[in-house]
């Protein structure tokens, strides 16, 4: 019988080792955004440019799936549609647009202390897509009479999952490294999801109902602009902005 117990001990040790190997060290480490160069400076508003644009969808967008919220009476029995494809006359809403490359570490940007707000209302995240700066507070609130869990699933930053049991409760989180995008979900209500774009500079926007965006006070230079959509993926464009320029670009996503 002692042989059986030796085998069992080995199984337990192996299970323990497997469990330890499952913790991804990259997720628990504290990542950081690139440090500014010694000669880094603030952006000169007098010479800065403006980049405007529009995101359009070519083709017919797939129908958003019907969401049945009957699993929680507090969410209501109404059947609503998902929010993945919000298209109005070809204009695509909820696309996150940001400067992906080109700023380097030449500039210093003050980090806003005012929190970006993300609410849970009628068992939906409002807004569905939002941007936040590195280390800027993100205030997550629950306006519903039911409970939610807030599960952030970053790849680079630290993963988290906490509960918000009562209406009116607020929690604040922040992120230590740029990451576009971080999915958020509520595991209680499987249809609830949101996407957070974390960037180290102020040049980002989310397209409105008209599919438009605007990046203001961009220093002159050549940049890679990225547009991200939760179903249609990413597109990039290279743009050169001169002093006091005002340019317009268009991103076109296609569906089959």
């Amino acid at each position, binding site marked *: *019988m002692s042989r059986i*117990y030796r085998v*069992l001990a080995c*199984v*337990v040790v192996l*299970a323990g080792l*497997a*469990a330890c*190997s*499952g*913790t*991804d060290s990259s997720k628990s480490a504290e990542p950081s955004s690139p440090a500014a160069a010694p000669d880094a400076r603030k952006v000169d508003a007098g010479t800065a440019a403006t980049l405007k644009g529009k995101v359009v969808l070519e083709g017919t967008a797939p129908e958003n799936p019907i969401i049945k919220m009957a*699993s*929680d*009476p*507090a969410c209501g029995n109404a059947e609503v549609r998902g929010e993945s494809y919000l298209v109005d006359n070809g204009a695509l809403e909820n696309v996150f647009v940001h400067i992906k490359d080109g700023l380097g570490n030449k500039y210093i940007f003050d980090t806003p202390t005012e929190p970006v707000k993300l609410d849970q209302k009628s068992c939906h995240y409002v807004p569905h897509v939002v941007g936040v700066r590195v280390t800027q507070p993100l205030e997550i609130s629950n306006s519903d009479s*039911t*409970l939610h*869990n807030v*599960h952030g*699933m970053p790849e680079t930053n630290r*993963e988290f*999952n*906490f*509960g918000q*049991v009562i209406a009116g409760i607020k929690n604040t989180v922040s992120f230590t490294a740029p990451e576009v995008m971080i999915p958020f979900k*509520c*595991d*209680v*209500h*499987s249809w609830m999801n949101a996407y957070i774009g974390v960037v180290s500079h102020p040049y980002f926007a989310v397209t409105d109902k008209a599919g438009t965006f605007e990046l203001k006070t961009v220093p002159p230079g050549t940049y890679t602009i990225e547009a991200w959509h939760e179903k249609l993926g990413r597109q990039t464009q290279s743009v050169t902005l001169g002093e006091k320029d005002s340019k317009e670009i268009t991103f076109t996503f296609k569906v089959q």
Partner: protein
Amino acid sequence: MHHRYAQFVVLCTVLLIAAGGLVTSTGSGLSVPDWPTTYGWNMFTFPMSKWVGGIRYEHSHRLIASTVGFLTIILAIWTWKIEPRRWVRRLGFTALGAVILQGLLGGLTVMFFLPPAISIGHASLAQLFFCLTVTMATVTSSTWRNTVDPVDDQMLRRVATVTTVLIYVQIIVGATMRHNDAGLAIPDFPLAFGHVLPPDWNARIAIHFAHRIGAVVVSLGILATAGHIFYHHPRRMELTRPAFALLFLVAMQVTLGAFVIWSGKNPAINTAHVVNGALVLGTSLMLTLRCHRIGFERLVQPIRTPAVSGWDLPQGSGHRHGARP
């Protein structure tokens, strides 16, 4: 009574595996973010009005797991009190240790956001614990105790043992597939992307395909075991009955596996596939134990002989016979 209770623990463990399967199939594993508390409440006082959405599955799983843990404590103590075989008494406490470790793994996987390694460990240990309860129920049964002429067939012992081990390995491969979200990595069945072999490979496709190959291997193992029993031991009901059950269960398992893919991983079908997989393993283990019955007989070492009077003892024991005290 003790055997009936052991059977009841097996039944509750099947229910627990079903609840765990539902948690994974519905993606509810993190719907309760804290452990061992539930949204700050004591697990047992969490209000039923708040059992909504994914919480219903995860919280039910925790409560059933606690119940099975409690039942296992009783089983271990009861076995210790009444069971004369030392190895069976130890088995009871081994089951208790396994269920405690299983609870800890369940908590760890929640706190570390379901890392595949811990979740696979949790799923694999669940089946080991189930095997322990099945063993307890098998070796405490009257069929086991009253066998006077156990089958002595070395080939059968080997085939049955290998088949049971293969089933367990297949279940671990299945758990690895589930917890790496590879259940639909090959979206068609019985072909793979319209071919016999997948035209493209990555880790998820490989683990999914390994599970399909495993299904073929396990089915062959079960056919070999059952075929051997029907050919060589057709009158041994203690072997033919579980062999028939095994054939039925493995056919059901392959069918459910196909429907998992055709339904796009419907949670109910997915869970039925997990539960039926456990039943295949449990049945094969029971059959294997019965094939090894003759070896166990030699291992029986009663150390708690009941107090007897001289006339109860066998002849040649040095006591007087026939004379009541």
